């Protein structure tokens, strides 16, 4: 058994990534009585809270504020859970790294996959909710896979870079959580900043520099307003994300043999 070729290695790691993703998802369902039903119940509970809060108590029952909010929250939640979980993956794989030589990049990728599978469940629920509220499948739905793909690129880029740095600066985890909360408020989940009065054009431009603002708006355009997404913005996000992925991959590979030496 001589050393494997690069292609053999690639497929072996790919198989490992998929099996570990399956294993993690299954372990999560095995931990509770209701199992994978929680992937449905939990977002329903979460969405119900917002529905009661804004739709009933604050009187947005008739306008489109609740769907507006839920689309934003769902899309944001995917981004947020991947980033905050992925940042710990390489650090968390310390024990494994001490025993086998694996490319460390697979740890954040496994996490992104598991969180993305869970997101797809939640997104399906969101679609059902929107259809029940009278929003219909429109001709721009075909853009949804593109939106998913662009956001996935953005998620991979941010996750890889975070996962690469956090083992050296574990303190960063606390910063990440708070920065994510800050970005959450600046991502237009609650309100459409561009529609507010008295907003300077310059501030509006700054606001749109946040890729999540664009993505959330694009999802709303497609799902609620029968409008095409902003292709130009998506292209720019993709380019920067690809650069970010390259950089994150570069960092992780550079420190490939340093991570096993870092204290957990």
């Amino acid at each position, binding site marked *: 058994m001589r050393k494997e070729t690069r292609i053999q290695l690639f497929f072996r790691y790919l198989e*490992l990534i998929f099996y570990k993703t399956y*294993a993690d998802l299954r*372990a999560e369902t095995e931990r509770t009585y209701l199992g994978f039903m929680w992937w449905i119940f939990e977002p329903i509970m979460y969405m119900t809270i917002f529905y009661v809060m804004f739709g009933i108590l604050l009187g947005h029952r008739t306008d489109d504020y609740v769907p507006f909010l839920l689309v934003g929250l769902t899309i944001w939640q995917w981004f947020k859970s991947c980033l905050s979980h992925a940042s710990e993956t390489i650090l968390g794989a310390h024990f*494994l790294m001490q025993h*086998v030589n694996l490319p460390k990049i697979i740890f954040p990728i496994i996490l992104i996959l598991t969180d993305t599978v869970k997101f797809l469940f939640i997104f399906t629920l969101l679609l059902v909710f929107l259809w029940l509220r009278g929003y219909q499948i429109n001709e721009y739905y075909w853009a949804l896979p593109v939106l998913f793909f662009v956001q996935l690129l953005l998620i991979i880029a941010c996750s890889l870079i975070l996962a690469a740095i956090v083992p050296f600066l574990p303190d960063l985890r606390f910063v990440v959580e708070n920065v994510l909360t800050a970005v959450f408020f600046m991502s237009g989940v609650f309100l459409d900043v561009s529609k507010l009065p008295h907003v300077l054009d310059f501030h509006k431009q700054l606001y749109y520099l946040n890729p999540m603002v664009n993505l959330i708006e694009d999802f709303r355009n497609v799902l609620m307003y029968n409008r095409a997404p902003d292709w130009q913005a998506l292209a720019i996000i993709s380019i920067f994300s690809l650069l970010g992925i390259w950089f994150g991959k570069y960092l992780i590979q550079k420190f490939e*043999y340093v991570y096993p*030496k870092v*204290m957990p």
Partner: protein
Amino acid sequence: MTTEIASHQEVPQKHELIMSLKNVGLSYRRKRGVFGEEFWALKDVSFDLYQGDTLGIIGRNGVGKSTLLRLMAGIMQPSHGQLINTGYQASLLSLQLGFIYYLSGRENAILSGMFMGLRKREILKRMDSIIEFAELGDFIDQPIATYSSGMLARLGFSVAFQVDPDVLLIDEILGVGDAEFYQKSTKVMQEKIHSNKTIVFVSHHAALIQQLCNRVVWIENGVSRMAGDTRTVLAEYHKFLHLESAA
């Protein structure tokens, strides 16, 4: 296949060279942060590993033996010196690696085997012998959370034993489990070591090394003090230990 060739060198080179270490050193940072001081787990280690060798690495606790195995497994890289692997796969024998508490024995066997370098189909092919050797029977499809510690140890060993790298690196462990399984697992492990496989076996038990290995490297304080045939090196090692305890 082993033809004796008269050699003038210290080590008779009857087999292919697998790994060669030349003045290898490895440092960690002891503390976190930019100013963490460096700690040299290994300072100057040199020896060669040949095909079919059972190489023992002896030394007292905390002299860098385990770190040396990690270097040989390709998990870490030397901070200075040279480690040449001529193209073989070396892996550590790791028990229960990557086990997930809530999954069944079967799923854990697949996962653990994959972490250690097997393809899924290879593990599935060997699943029957894993189950049989681990004496798990129908328990294999129960979550390992329900296993006794003995069952878990048996499963861990049976899976790890299926992994068959070119060079097997063993850190102290030969057998696991209760008395009966300990004997059984030690027996198969010794059979493996006595076969033509290339093995590196780390221990501080001179008796075990003497029994199992044909060549020995003695590590003291991160430095390889001596490498050669078992009898010579162990004799020097014992002499050193006596001097140490006398001092």
